[in-house]
């Protein structure tokens, strides 16, 4: 009874997908927000730097160089929060510092020309731009960008924390929903695996909601109940047939027994008028009893075939059967009678071959095959019971003989009910015990176990093989 593993469950996969999607959504959102924020901050910084430069240019135009130097010095002395500072450097044509808080002309990025990201002493990042205010005067204005970085980090952290929360929420909600769905599906599965009436009733009561699973549950319940009713009615009918036939047959049998006893007593009575036991009548009465047994056996076989066919594919009631031991036990029973009938009977059994099955039924199957072989193989012939594993490791049982074999036209019909091979010589010994149902029952039992019983191609004799169905 294989159950769906946690990894294979569609519900686990659904939850995993939901988690993966929410992670992706959080990542994309985070990326979008940080990129946008970074661009806006960059634009602001550039705009501010340009404004600073314009402001200084205005001062130079309006009030002259001395005022500019003083103003730059003043601006540079202003304190500002970390990561937001404004810096200036004013140099003459020779590169000598005229004013500003910076002491050294910074290195611009190779492709940036006279503007771009620079690194201030002390590892503070900044955006800077340099312009020629006058032919002999060059101004560099810079604004620190450290604060932007801090803000970006904060935003990133918020997204990580928020994302984790979202993923957990999705996971937990998904898990709860999945468990609920999975338990509802499990009820349906259990009902299908083992359609007991109480399980079916449990299906019926679980229709609180009107969703797809509720619909599936309702339909499953209806189908299973119908199947269950069919199986029950089949069982009831066969039970009744058996009962209604066996009981009168038993009374008939009892009458025959009394008739036989009466005949025997008539014989033992010394009266001359009784005329002794009528041997012929007794023989006929005994034969009549034999007929009753035969009718009962036929009925039983037919019902057994019907039962096996109804049970096909149902693993209920199957347990591990040691085929090697089973074959040894049967061989033990048959060896003596094979010697008496002059058959060469052999057992070729590998050790420890097992399968899932119903031991009584498999014994019956093997015995039917053996009875069939001993019936058709003439004395002196060989009958072999084989138990082994095939190339794929599956169990295989075979009954092989070197008798006359089965004529091609009968290769399939022998497995049908009452489909015996008609031998032209007639059947003087009245080989009617099997009633032609032995192989039909054997095949029904094989199919009930998910196996196939077939006549293997042989050059001589017959070889019946019970094996796992090809493709199974």
């Amino acid at each position, binding site marked *: 009874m294989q159950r769906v593993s946690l990894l294979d469950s569609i519900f686990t996969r659904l939850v995993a997908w939901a988690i993966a999607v929410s992670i992706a959504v959080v990542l994309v959102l985070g990326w979008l927000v940080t990129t946008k924020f970074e661009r806006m901050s960059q634009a602001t910084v550039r705009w501010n730097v340009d404004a600073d430069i314009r402001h200084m240019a205005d001062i130079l135009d309006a009030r002259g160089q001395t005022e500019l130097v003083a103003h730059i010095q003043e601006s540079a002395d202003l304190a500002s929060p970390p990561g937001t500072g404004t810096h200036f450097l004013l140099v003459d044509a020779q590169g000598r510092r005229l004013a500003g808080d910076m002491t050294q002309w910074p290195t611009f990025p190779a492709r940036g020309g006279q503007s771009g990201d620079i690194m201030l002493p002390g590892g503070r990042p900044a955006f800077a731009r340099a312009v020629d205010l006058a032919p002999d005067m060059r101004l560099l204005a810079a604004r620190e960008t450290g604060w932007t970085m801090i803000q970006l980090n904060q935003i990133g952290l918020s997204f990580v924390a928020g994302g984790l929360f979202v993923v957990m929420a999705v996971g937990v909600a998904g898990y709860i929903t999945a468990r609920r769905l999975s338990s509802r599906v499990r009820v349906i599965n259990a009902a299908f695996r083992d359609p007991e009436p109480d399980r079916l009733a449990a299906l019926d009561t679980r229709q609180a909601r009107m969703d797809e699973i509720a619909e599936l549950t309702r339909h499953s319940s209806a189908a299973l109940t119908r199947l269950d009713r069919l199986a029950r009615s089949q069982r009831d009918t066969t039970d009744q047939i058996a*009962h209604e*036939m066996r*009981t009168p047959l038993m009374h008939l049998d009892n009458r025959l027994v009394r008739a036989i006893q009466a005949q025997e007593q008539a014989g033992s009575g010394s009266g001359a008028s009784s005329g002794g036991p009528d041997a012929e009548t007794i023989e006929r009465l005994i034969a009549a009893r034999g007929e009753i047994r035969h009718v009962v056996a036929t009925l039983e076989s037919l019902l057994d075939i019907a*039962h096996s066919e109804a049970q096909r594919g149902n693993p209920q009631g199957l347990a591990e059967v040691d085929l090697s031991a089973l074959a040894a036990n049967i061989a033990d029973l048959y060896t003596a009678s094979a010697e008496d009938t002059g058959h060469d009977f052999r057992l070729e059994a590998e050790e420890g071959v097992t399968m899932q099955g119903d031991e009584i039924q498999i014994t019956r199957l093997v015995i039917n095959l053996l009875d069939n072989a001993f019936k058709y193989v003439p004395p002196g012939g060989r009958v072999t019971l084989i138990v082994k594993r095939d190339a794929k490791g599956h169990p295989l049982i075979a009954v092989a003989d070197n008798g006359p074999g089965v004529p091609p036209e009968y290769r399939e019909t022998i497995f049908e009910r009452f489909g015996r091979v008609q031998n032209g010589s007639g059947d003087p010994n009245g080989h009617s015990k099997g009633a032609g149902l032995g192989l039909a029952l054997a095949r029904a039992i094989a199919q009930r176990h998910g196996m196939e019983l077939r006549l293997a191609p042989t050059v001589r004799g017959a070889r019946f093989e019970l094996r796992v169905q090809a493709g199974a």
Partner: protein
Amino acid sequence: MTMMARGVERTGVRMAKNGLDILHIEDDSRTAADLQELMRATGDRVTWAPTGSEGLRQAGVGEFDVIILDRMLPDFDGLTVVRQLRDSGIGTPLLMLSALGRTIDRAEGLDAGADDYLAKPFEATELLARLRALHRRASGHTHSAVIIHGAFECHVKARTAFRAGKHLALSPKEFELFRYMIENAGDVVTREMLLRDVWKMGFDPQTNVVDVNIGRLRRKLEDGFATPALETIWGTGYRLLDGR
């Protein structure tokens, strides 16, 4: 006389009580009457209960050696009756007699708590043999180290058999057969019982395989002796004689 040590069992004294007290739960009056007649001949006493509830009541108040229960009753299912009996602590050996004779029906009956199962129509000897075997098993006399019946001795542990002191060379399966026969000595054992208990097969193969095996055992038991060892009960089974 070394064989008379502890654990030795004499089959002769075991069935001191004459006949069995039988409760027959069966709705079909003709079957009941037939059984009454049969049991009168064998000296057993039968109490008939026509319904499941009456049967349960009788089983509760009376002392019975065995119960014969029909599978299909008008009020209860036979399986229900067995379960109720077993649930209320009544462990009397029970044989289920039924018109349902398929292997599945047997398995159900035994699972429900029946000790044996016999399908209709049955041979009278088969029923009598089963009832006696059931009663014997329930009285728990089957675990002796040495079983003696007449001139026969069976040393269970050593797995050896003797007749009048002469060792019998039996194969393992023949020993099993002999042991089963001597455990039921004095009573008939049927083919079906042998198949079920010695070969562990729950059905009759419809061929003479059992007879052939018994025939071999008989030859070994009788080799060198003038008197027969086994009596064949026509059509059903065998009885181990005392071999004297």
